[in-house]
């Protein structure tokens, strides 16, 4: 049993094999075989992850170096995996939720052609591989490989239906936005190499603990890393790609754009918590950006009419919450929320996939309504997901959100106030979505109504499992005030994440805060019920219209950045390229052509003229020699 950690490299290897088999054999394998291979490899990783997790719980951690990835002069970057408390927890989330989503996909994507079905599963496996690389890497460079890999897979899967230009544009947008963040991450890595001479987590952190960094260095490094995180985890100002990423198939949205990839930024900061704790400036920036994103995305989500867009903005908002937790030093709360969010957001996305499936591709909630009667399992699990994300005890979202709110309260009541307000908005828009979709009268066409049916078992079973997890997932982090020693997660992560210092609030205050948030959330839900139980389509006006158009942020970005760049590109293409570059190239060609045309005339074929030229040349040589002689 001891050697489970020594074969931990098998965990990412399985999905890589799946990627190769499905990718290369997509034209030869049958759909069921592709599905079995695609899900099977992730299941194998999941089983391995459980085994590894058990070992880590027993107190074993392991850093294994396999070979030198880069070795130049004194710089040595090993290809190394690190299995410890934090990464083993993420391994469980990624492979566990990932497996359920693979199973779900076998049914959801069943109408695709076999070749594309294989392509889909190979991308999905490649994604899981990259994500595992990201969390298992024992230094920033290996992490960066995974970081880039998930970005690539995200791009490939958003543009999965590549015949649709709009989807391709969404894929490009996601990729480019991510690249902006990645650049900052890369610069941070270079900075670390310049200062530490090494990128291994252990070395960098011990370097930091010995106070060898100057405060300016540490602030710059942490801010650059954070910029990287804003790209991957969709925070202001780089969040606009995530809602557009909903162009991909719904299980992809669940896996990549809700449960795993977007939490990479959280993982990275939680991993680097030692660095972050040393820079108060960065911590404040992280907290403020997180909170602002949470609030902005929550307000936008209030007025969206596309079922997946609501969930996408909800994801952005929840990620904002996680960054708020990181910024206030509550790393454990952030990781906790990553976990519970993975459960309930994957559940909600898969639920929405089930709805879209039943509606025959319809995503506009204005055309839905009353689906609860037809889609019993989907509706029940969606209820659980909504209750969990709204934060009603004892569902998982309550515990993780409460931990974040508490840490915000410890930092400043203003942060707490805004965070609580955002949490209430969350409850409101999620239940708006729920009521509009599942209650009231059906507003779609007759054809759609006739077509309505519950999804097959391969889709409903993952929903049920995720619903169960959304319910019980919070019990690993029961706050100290309710049950002594209930915060199992905090204890488990203690070796990796130092408990944050702050003035702990008294238990009675904590109870009061919990009670307040719970009561207000229930009030919001009731308000949503009265407002949306019999939803009628209305045109948004005033502020509602601004929210429906996402605060016009996309338009602002287009005006401020995209259009000028595009015009500049057009100028380079139309003027510089055409007249300067082509001019030089064609000019050289034309000059040679003209010159040789003229020189050709010398070649008359007259022997006499050749001899004359020869004699004249020799005369010239003689004369020159005569004059140049020393």
């Amino acid at each position: 049993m001891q050697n489970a950690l020594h074969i931990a490299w098998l965990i990412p290897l399985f999905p890589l094999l799946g990627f190769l088999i499905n990718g290369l054999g997509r034209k030869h394998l049958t759909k069921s075989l592709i599905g079995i291979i695609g899900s099977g490899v992730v299941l194998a990783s999941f089983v391995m992850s459980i085994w590894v997790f058990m070992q880590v719980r027993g107190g074993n951690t392991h850093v294994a170096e396999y070979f030198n990835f880069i070795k130049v002069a004194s710089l040595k970057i090993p290809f190394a995996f690190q299995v410890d408390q934090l990464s083993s927890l993420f391994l469980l989330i990624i492979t566990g939720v990932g497996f359920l989503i693979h199973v779900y996909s076998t049914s959801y994507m069943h109408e695709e052609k076999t070749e594309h079905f294989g392509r889909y599963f190979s991308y999905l496996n490649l994604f899981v591989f990259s994500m595992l690389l990201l969390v298992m890497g024992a230094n920033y460079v290996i992490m960066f490989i995974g970081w880039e890999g998930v970005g690539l897979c995200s791009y490939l899967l958003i543009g999965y239906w590549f015949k649709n230009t709009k989807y391709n544009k969404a894929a490009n947008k996601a990729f480019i936005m991510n690249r902006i963040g990645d650049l900052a991450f890369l610069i941070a890595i270079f900075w670390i190499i310049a200062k530490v001479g090494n990128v291994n987590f252990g070395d960098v952190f011990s370097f930091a603990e010995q106070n060898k960094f100057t405060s300016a260095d540490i602030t710059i490094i942490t801010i650059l890393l954070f910029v990287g995180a804003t790209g991957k985890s969709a925070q202001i100002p780089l969040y606009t790609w995530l809602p557009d990423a909903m162009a991909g198939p719904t299980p992809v949205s669940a896996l990549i754009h809700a449960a795993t990839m977007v939490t990479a930024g959280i993982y990275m900061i939680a991993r680097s918590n030692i660095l972050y704790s040393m820079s108060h400036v960065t911590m404040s920036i992280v907290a403020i950006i997180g909170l602002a994103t949470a609030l902005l995305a929550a307000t936008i989500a209030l007025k969206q009419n596309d079922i997946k867009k609501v969930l996408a903005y909800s994801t952005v908002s929840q990620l904002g919450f996680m960054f708020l937790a990181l910024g206030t030093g509550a790393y454990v709360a952030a990781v906790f929320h990553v976990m519970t969010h993975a459960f309930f957001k994957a559940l909600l996305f898969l639920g929405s996939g089930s709805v879209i499936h039943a509606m025959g591709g319809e995503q506009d909630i204005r055309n839905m309504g009353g689906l609860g009667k037809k889609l019993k399992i989907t509706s029940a699990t969606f209820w659980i997901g909504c209750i969990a994300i709204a934060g009603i005890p004892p569902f998982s979202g309550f515990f993780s959100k409460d931990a974040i709110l508490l840490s915000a309260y410890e930092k400043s009541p203003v942060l707490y106030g805004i965070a609580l307000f955002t949490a209430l908005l969350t409850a409101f828009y999620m239940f708006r979505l729920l009521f509009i979709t599942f209650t009231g009268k059906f507003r779609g066409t007759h054809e759609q109504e006739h077509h309505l049916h519950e999804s097959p078992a391969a889709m409903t079973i993952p929903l049920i499992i995720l619903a169960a997890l959304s319910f019980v997932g919070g019990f690993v982090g029961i706050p100290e005030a309710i049950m002594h020693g209930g915060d199992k997660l905090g204890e488990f992560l203690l070796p990796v994440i130092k408990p944050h210092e702050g003035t702990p609030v008294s238990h009675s205050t904590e109870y009061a805060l919990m009670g307040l948030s719970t009561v207000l959330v229930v009030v919001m839900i009731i308000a949503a019920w009265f407002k949306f139980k019999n939803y009628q389509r209305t045109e948004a006006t005033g502020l509602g219209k601004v929210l429906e158009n996402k605060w016009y942020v996309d338009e602002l970005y287009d005006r401020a950045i995209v259009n000028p760049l595009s015009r500049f590109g057009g100028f380079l293409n139309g003027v510089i390229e055409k007249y300067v570059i082509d001019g030089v190239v064609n000019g050289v060609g034309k000059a040679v052509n003209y010159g040789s045309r003229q020189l050709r005339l010398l070649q008359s074929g007259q022997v006499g003229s050749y001899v004359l030229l020869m004699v004249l040349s020799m005369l010239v040589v003689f004369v020159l020699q005569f004059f140049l002689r020393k």
Partner: protein
Amino acid sequence: MPINYYIFLSIALFCIGIVGVLTRRNAIIIFMCIELMLNAVNLLLVAFSKMHHATALAADTATTAGTDGQLFVFFIMVVAAAEVSVGLAIIVMMYRNIHSVDVNFLNRLKH
């Protein structure tokens, strides 16, 4: 006889050869002019050789110094004879093909 006379004669012969090559169109005359230039050089070699050998003999009666110029002349004569045989053969072939020995008809080199 002073060496100058030989030099002037040689230059005169050489220039006549060059002018002949440049101005005449008859291949045989051009050929003769080339021979003229070769012989101008031969004359010069012999003249200088004789001059050097004479000064060397004054110092040592058994010396052969300075005779190598005359040896060169024999080489040139042999090579020239070979060249003449090839050249005349070319001219004969030319006459057979175009019934003329005018070099200006032979401007196909540019094609």
